[in-house]
């Protein structure tokens, strides 16, 4: 929540466990320095990523969303990223109708061995989001209230 004022923007990543999360680990092991904005949500497979998660994240005020999975053909579950590719491409093309800059969301493929590539992807995406600046915020009640209400409903 507390984005470092003036330093960071809110960037959320959805990464598949087998390839891209591993790639991000490999980048860490290699000490490949990256901007600190990104927060990673780990999912088993890019096929698990419902595009609505990404929309929800943007609606909740994220400035950028990055999705990364195994390279096509290398999915740990054989086909997950093929489904993901279609869903994510549709989303990428759909977002502008809502008024979101298309560059606020990107998807890509990074394997577990590509630590350096992960570093480049994060650096580039973070730069892109900083260039776009903070995302427009939807007017409405304070987060804490709504979220507390949602939690309470469970």
């Amino acid at each position: 929540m507390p984005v470092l004022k003036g330093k960071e923007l809110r960037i959320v990543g959805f990464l598949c466990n087998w390839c891209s999360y591993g790639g991000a680990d490999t980048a860490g092991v290699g000490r490949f320095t990256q901007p600190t904005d990104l927060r990673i949500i780990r999912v088993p497979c890019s096929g698990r990523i419902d595009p609505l998660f990404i929309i929800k994240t943007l609606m909740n005020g994220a400035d950028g969303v990055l999705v990364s999975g195994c390279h096509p053909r290398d999915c740990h579950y054989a086909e997950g990223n093929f489904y993901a590719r279609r869903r994510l491409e549709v989303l990428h093309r759909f977002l502008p109708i809502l008024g979101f800059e298309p560059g606020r969301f990107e998807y890509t493929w990074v394997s577990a061995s590509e630590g350096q590539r992960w570093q480049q992807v994060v650096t580039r995406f973070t730069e892109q989001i900083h260039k776009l600046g903070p995302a427009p915020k939807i007017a409405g009640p304070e987060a804490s209230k709504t979220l507390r209400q949602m939690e309470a409903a469970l």
Partner: protein
Amino acid sequence: MKYQQELKDSIRKALPDLDVVIAWSSGFDPLHATPHFIRRDEDIDRLEIGPLCVHNLATYLPGLRGKKVGIVVKGCDSRSVIELLQENLIKREDVTIFGFPCTGVVDQTKVRKALGNAGRVDFCQVASQTLVVGAGGTEHKLRLSKVLADKCFSCQYPNALLADHFVGEKISPSVAEEEGYDDLAAFENMPLDERFAFWQKEMDRCIRCYACRNACPMCVCRDHCLAESRDPHWLSQEDNVRDKWMFQLIHAYHLAGRCTECGECQRACPMDIPLLLLKKKMNKEIKELFQYEAGVDPAATPPLLSFKMEEENIKEREW
């Protein structure tokens, strides 16, 4: 309407084998048609077809699963039936489809605007290019071209695409395919921040009645719609733009590759929120990417439930 008698005859013949036939009849006033459930022979007489038959009756089909149902469809409605068949939500042998060539249906919002505060509607007649409405003692002549629904101006399938009984002559679409998305193109010419502001303003008016969803023939989850569920818990029950807008995106996404652009969602919305714009955008992208249109081929596989190893139209991102 021209083929009305023919249609009645054909329903009369089929009725003994059916539990019910869904059609339209005159509603609470002569300007509004309403869904009409034909169970007995005498019900057939009240059947009406024409530009007032706005409802997409396919919406009732999933709820009548297990029954032998006849249904009268416009071109656009037939696509919903096809889509329901494709998704195994209804059985082909359970439905009997009656089709007729549709020349367009009115948009009641436009009619209301054109009539202004005209008072009680006494009668309504359809002449060739006009709708003659008698209200508050005066006669109003409305040019059909002014009051037809937007979707009818871009309609590519005026004849039922799938029918067991088709009455009348098939007609050809009145507009070229490319024109269908003009309104979308106009909207997309707006700068991004204006689009963002536009939706905020529009969605602010939403009253969360879910009429849009209830009218949608493809929203088959109904009681278990994400909008009102706690597990999964996508939306709060609050009245805020964020959640209301999010619901429309949930709807648009759940209809991705399934929406037949029947326009029921928008028609049903009491607040006249231009919901179809979102659906059209989704359909346009899906068509461009996968050369796919929902509700055309009952045997097709929807694009988001399938894939190709090499996608012709998706570039590997330079990312």
